[in-house]
């Protein structure tokens, strides 16, 4: 190797190396570093909000879902992380005396439809199959990003279901139903692929507690508006609109959530106290045995909001400013190539009349050979 000669020589280094054979190493040594404290393990939040009933008299179910959607958006979860499924359109329904509004309270105090609603699955797209596909991720490749649940192993997911239900099932669109076994299996498949870190499941239907009886995957917390054998009741009708506006449980849930702001420290024990029997007539239930953290240490904003973990960037890389190079047009396509493109290949068809002539020829040959008397059998 040639030593490079420099004009000023302040030090020179000469190293003579002797090559030794190759060795291999297999290591296993544990090093401890300083501990850092993270209160919860999630880095992003998702919400799947489903309303399963159609028809005008089920206005309250759409209002339920939209009020949870509104709270979740207000507390910070962006639309790209919310999958909203509404089985029917109440705001623009022909029977709505106040079009483009969905109210949650009589006297029309709160319009939960707002002006910034993004519905991902609407009308007849809300089916059991689509719901399970969203949860498990088994969507056809052509599904756009807004219709997918792109959660990872550090996502906290809020799932809210409302509609008409019974003991062990929830009715979709008045024509099919999802059973609690299917739901539990779907959550297990989500856990197998680590599609959630923690999951909060809220259901507001009749006999809602039966839907979370069969869960067996870890890190699930469930709330229901009524126990098995009880009916979930609606709140109050509005005489101008003509239907019941909201269900009791979600009405008091909305009232509770309106007091929560992104920096709030309210925890799940407060959520369990929402809508006691005196207000709700049915007995709300909850299930926390599959959840690893203590519910008192779980903040409401862990599921309903989207509080990001943030770290200050301490390291930077020193980059030298890059000198401007003149734009080179080398990469552009020559004009000739742009203009003279190859003509599109058209399929070749035989010229017109050719087929007619061919068949005439065949018929003539036939009758020449076998005699004209067969003609009457043809026509």
């Amino acid at each position, binding site marked *: *190797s040639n*030593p*490079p000669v*420099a004009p000023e*020589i*302040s*030090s*020179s*280094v000469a*190293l*003579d*190396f*002797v*090559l*030794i054979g190759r*060795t*291999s190493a*297999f*290591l*296993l*040594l*544990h*090093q401890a*570093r*300083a*501990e*850092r404290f*993270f209160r919860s393990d999630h*880095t992003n939040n998702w919400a799947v909000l489903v309303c399963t009933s159609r028809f005008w008299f089920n206005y309250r179910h759409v209002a339920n879902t939209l009020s949870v959607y509104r709270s979740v958006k207000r507390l910070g*979860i*962006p639309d*790209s992380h919310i999958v909203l499924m509404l089985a029917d359109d109440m705001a623009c329904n022909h029977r709505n005396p106040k079009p483009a509004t969905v109210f949650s309270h009589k006297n029309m105090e709160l319009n939960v439809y707002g002006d910034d609603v993004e519905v991902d699955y609407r009308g007849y797209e809300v089916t059991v*199959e689509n719901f399970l*596909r969203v949860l498990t991720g*088994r969507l*056809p490749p052509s599904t*756009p*990003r*807004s219709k*997918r649940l*792109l959660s990872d*192993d*550090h996502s906290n997911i809020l799932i809210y279901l409302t509609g008409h239900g019974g003991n062990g099932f929830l009715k979709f669109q008045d024509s099919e139903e999802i059973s609690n*076994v*299917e739901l539990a299996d779907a959550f297990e498949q989500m856990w*197998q*692929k680590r599609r959630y870190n923690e999951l909060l499941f809220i259901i507001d239907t009749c006999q809602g507690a039966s839907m979370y009886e069969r869960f067996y995957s870890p890190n699930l917390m469930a709330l229901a508006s009524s126990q098995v054998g009880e009916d979930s009741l609606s709140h109050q009708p509005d005489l101008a609109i003509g239907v019941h506006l909201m269900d009791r449980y979600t009405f008091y849930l909305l009232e509770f959530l309106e007091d929560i702001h992104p920096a709030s420290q309210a925890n799940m024990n407060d959520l369990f106290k929402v809508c006691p029997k005196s207000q709700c007539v049915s007995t709300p239930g909850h299930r926390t045995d599959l959840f690893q953290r203590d519910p008192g240490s779980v903040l409401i904003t862990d599921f309903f909001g*989207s509080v*990001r*973990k*943030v*770290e*200050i*960037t*301490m*390291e930077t*890389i020193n*980059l030298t*400013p890059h000198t*401007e190079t003149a734009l080179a047009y080398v990469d552009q396509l020559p004009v000739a190539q742009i203009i003279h493109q190859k003509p599109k290949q058209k399929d070749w068809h035989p010229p017109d009349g050719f087929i007619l002539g061919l068949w005439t020829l065949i018929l003539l040959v036939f009758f020449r050979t076998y005699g004209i008397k067969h003609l009457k059998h043809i026509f």
Partner: protein
Amino acid sequence: TTVTGTRGRSAAVAIAALVIAAGIPLWWKTTETYRAWLPAARISELEALQLELRVEVEVVFARGTLSPEQQKKVPASRITYESCCKSKSLCLVEADHALHTLTETSCGSVVIYIIPEASALLPQDMRVYVGRSRTALLRSQVASVVGAGLPEVLAALDPQMEQVLQTMSFNHQDVTAALTDRLRPGLSTRDSLADSMRAFKSSPGYEITFSLLNPDPKHHQLHWDVEAALDAYIYPLLHKMAPVANFSVDSQILYYAVLGVNPRYDASASAYTLSADSLAHVINPVEARLGSNAASSNPVLNFLLYVPDSLHSPLIIRNDQKQEVASNAFHSPRWGGIMVYNVDGAYGNDTQFPVDIAIDMSRVMGVFLSQLRLMLGFQQTGAPPGFVLEAAGREGVAEWELDRLLWSRSVENVATASASITSLAQLLDQIANIVINDNIAQQVASAVTALQAAVAELEAGNLALALEHSREAISASERAFFDPSLLHLLYFPDDQKFAIYIPLFLPMCVPILLSLLKIFREVQQHRAEKRAKRD
């Protein structure tokens, strides 16, 4: 009547025989779900998978480290290197660069050069120098061990070499961090959990978006030459990461985009400040306006450059100890980073608005590059005492840092792919009425083959091939697990099955059974009569 009776009997028996012999198998076959064969034995082998990682290490002794007797025992091939360098600090870099050109290093291997204790190459208190490309210089006093053979020399070097390899290749903590979601909770430390939370999980592709937020276009007319800056600073890193994933980069400018937090004015610093706890609420209002590529499901990294409006300039970020942050930037795990760029120094009070401002892209990209490295999985390695780690510089990442990432990615891919396959097999076992198409079976088979190949390559020490196989394995296993056809038949409870079959089969089966019973009783009676006649 006996003729018609026998004819009737034989007809009934024939019908019953037809129903049982042909009908039941036909019904069974036509209502069975098509399940292609899965290699169940190989899949169950995967559950007990043992990973062995092998690093190829080449040890090169310099003159003066070995005594002449030891030198004679060593397979010798001499390489002479001599250089004269301008100043002592540059010597190391030049020496490292020249040494790199001397020996060929493949992906995943490490070359350690042992230099004598008295060498002037390293500063006095430093024992190890790790260069930019898989080489390390280790200062040791092996020559003082007189009369020892080669194995003893190597054994004496072992602890130091192990420390070098743990910094350059992988250690127990990295491996457990790569496996965090597959391990029982409690096995991984809090720190490795923090690292695994920050970096994105292994994915076939990533989307990177650079956004310039200008809340005050009336006063600031910003120019940023982002294409040239990306070409110069970001694309080299992404090209190096091509074996790991595909990247798609885009950029945008957002006008009238404000941060969601009101900064407080601090008179002592005469600047507006954002404290560390308010930073968490900055991201959400902005994210709604960022947008993303609707066609792909890849994870998105967002890098935002925020230029504060003239009323709130300058804006500085304070950390927990109320000190200024040099970079004036912060990042959020698995999301991206935000940098605040103050332009109040570029103009005075009486200039005509809007002011043309050109953004210094090298400073901006320096911050974004370091944030990008964190998001992609290059950890902030704390160098052990006595180590000098060469900074990555313009290329963005050193070869050994990339190797480190490749090791942990390969392990993560292998673990995720094997977990997917085993859980898919378990799922298909449990739910008997899911149709398994041929393409799923094919994907599973190819995933299993690729997994076994990846494990074999990891054992042999070929990191590049191992990564390729592990990527194949994970993409095949994800495609198999998330195939849309695996949802075809939903759950049928047993009572519903009975409710469907009974009205169909019962009216048909009752006459057959009754006639068979009748025939049986007649035959018995006939036999009893025959016996009575005989007696």
